[in-house]
């Protein structure tokens, strides 16, 4: 490993508005209620056309959502999820006000997704015409590209600043916040909508089944009985600006394990470098973190490496929680969704629990068990970290504060 130059501290940026829609329902209050009640929203797979015995975190009602005629060509589960997610918590109005303040050309969009609208291409392959082409109804070219949801959200919000899709698997939308901060720091824009959107679909579910990491029962991160991941879907959005707000992004760190496409580095070196960089940009020590939202997928290898990192670096008083058993692993949306779990802790003192896991696997040792929290806690905190360690060895750690 070569000497890595530690980044300099950055000026924090403000989370001006945010919203999240996932298996707990539409809007941030649905998520907050789910977290406060430590209630897993996972259920047995009941998606049409997906014949797999697994638990999923599904957003109800997407299929029957009245779809606006103006967006007829953009219809897909993923764009429906993005649309439904945008219509909560006054988010569209907050973005409209930012466009008024700065001009739409000064408001950017960075959206993290892993599967985007690939489900539309999958559907087209199931319904090829007699010449082997996509059926006429599924030939909107803009839907058959990884950038599709970003282009859709950009048009819905009327944004005219730079717009880009980050697709680095599970770290995608955590990295979207890092891109947003850099754009703001260089004054390329005055506001950025950072987003994470991933919908349930065949490629993700059958893909993780092929890898042998899909659990049958709702996932149990860090449990001795952890038996694989549960995939969920979510749309999370944050409006980020320079200046002050109740919740600030204080640091971000990105790295790569440089080890294996789907197995973490055994000593967690990449994850730790991302943590160190996020702390350096925040100008804080790991001991200052009151909360850490773990990547915690409930895959055997990931949890073991992450538990060791938590025991080694965070203070015994830290509140470590893993929320993928509550929401499902929402893939490209997970980074931002879990940053918003941290934002709820910073804003209103709601520190999430880790259902359905209660007691962590004893092999992780007493230091991890001391930091682990199965139940939610109400207390004021100053600083939180969120871990996103993804496929392809791609890592991102965020530090948020108030």
């Amino acid at each position, binding site marked *: 490993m070569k000497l*890595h130059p530690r980044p300099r501290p950055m000026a924090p940026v403000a989370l001006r508005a945010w919203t999240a829609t996932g298996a707990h329902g539409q809007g941030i209050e649905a998520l907050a209620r789910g977290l406060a009640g430590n209630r897993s929203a996972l259920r047995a797979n009941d998606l049409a056309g997906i014949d797999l015995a697994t638990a999923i975190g599904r957003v109800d009602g997407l299929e029957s959502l009245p779809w606006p005629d103006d967006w007829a060509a953009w219809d897909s589960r993923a764009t429906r999820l993005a649309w439904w997610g945008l219509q909560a918590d006054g988010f569209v109005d907050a973005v409209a006000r930012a466009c008024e303040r700065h001009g739409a050309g000064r408001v950017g969009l960075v959206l993290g997704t892993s599967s985007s609208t*690939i489900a539309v291409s999958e559907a087209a392959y199931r319904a090829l015409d007699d010449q082997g082409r*996509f059926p006429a109804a599924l030939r909107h070219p803009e839907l058959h590209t990884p950038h599709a949801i970003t282009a859709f959200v950009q048009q819905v919000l009327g944004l005219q600043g730079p717009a880009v899709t980050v*697709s680095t698997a599970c770290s995608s939308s955590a990295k979207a916040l890092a891109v947003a901060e850099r754009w703001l720091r*260089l004054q390329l824009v005055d506001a950025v909508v950072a987003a994470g959107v991933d919908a349930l679909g065949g490629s993700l579910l059958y893909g993780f089944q092929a890898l042998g990491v899909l659990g049958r029962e709702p996932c149990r991160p860090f449990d001795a009985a952890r038996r694989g991941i549960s995939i969920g879907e979510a749309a999370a959005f944050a409006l980020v600006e320079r200046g002050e707000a109740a919740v600030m992004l204080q640091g971000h760190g990105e790295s790569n394990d440089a*080890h294996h496409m*789907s197995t973490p580095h055994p000593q967690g070196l990449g994850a730790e470098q991302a943590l160190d960089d996020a702390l350096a940009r925040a100008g804080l020590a790991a001991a200052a973190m009151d909360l850490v939202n773990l990547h915690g997928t409930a895959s055997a290898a990931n949890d073991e490496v992450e538990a060791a990192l938590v025991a080694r670096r965070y203070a015994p008083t830290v509140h470590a929680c893993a929320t993928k058993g509550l929401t499902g692993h929402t893939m490209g949306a997970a980074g931002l969704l879990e940053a918003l779990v941290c934002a709820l802790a910073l804003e209103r003192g709601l520190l999430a629990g880790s259902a359905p896991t209660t007691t962590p696997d004893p092999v992780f040792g007493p230091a991890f068990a001391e930091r682990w929290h199965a139940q939610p806690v109400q207390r004021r905190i100053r600083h939180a970290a969120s871990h996103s360690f993804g496929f392809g060895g*791609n890592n991102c750690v965020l530090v948020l504060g108030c």
Partner: protein
Amino acid sequence: MPPVFVQALGWWTPGCPDWPRAAAALRGEPAAPAAGAGRPAPTLLAANERRRAPDAVLMALQVAEEACTAAGADPATLPSVFTSAYGDLAIVDALCRTLAGDPRLLSPMRFHHSVHNAASGYWAIGARNPEASTALAAGAHSFAAGWLEAATQCITDERAVLLVGCDTEAMGPLQSVNASRGLLAVAMLLAPQPRTAQDRAIAWRLQPGAHAAPPLRSAAARTLQAQAMADALPLFEALADKASTTLSLPLSTTLALALTLSPA
């Protein structure tokens, strides 16, 4: 905005497998015949990984290696930005076919290769590079969006950043919605300072308004205009030609990247 400096370039197409040959072709000079063109063979991948890797990964790693070698840069130390409009379309085609046929036959290898950050992940593994690496897409403007991210990281972290753009050809039924034809991979090592007097400086800013992509000057570039990474071509033409120049690369229908190229 401080300028960035182009320390090295990389290029791969089936008929033109390195930047010196491509630069000549983009200047309109008769190209030297390429020996051994066909499949790129990046040396950083182990032989068994090279055999299994999809085209997009091989092409991306090939140009990444070329740029690092040309600049004398250690591949293990550079942050990287990988951009691609579509990822590997042969893999997308195979993935969709399997899911439409018998989804339980999807292989773990194919799923590995289908993620948009496959090239980024294989580069990190092959180069033993733990630095930040990202994978972006922005439709027809994927190169320009990737360039924006690489330049932004270069300035904010004051570090050299490796940019790689790569796209493939639409296969099978995807051809009914996807016009990408041919293969193209490009790389650019951007740094906050010049390394040699030959480096080119690029002053840059965002430019509001609708801007058409600059017309392609060379026959070599025009043969690639249906390629999904074709929005890289005007900048590579300008870099092949040593003259100072300005050009606008569209980022969308309402925004462009205004670039001014000059000697370092």
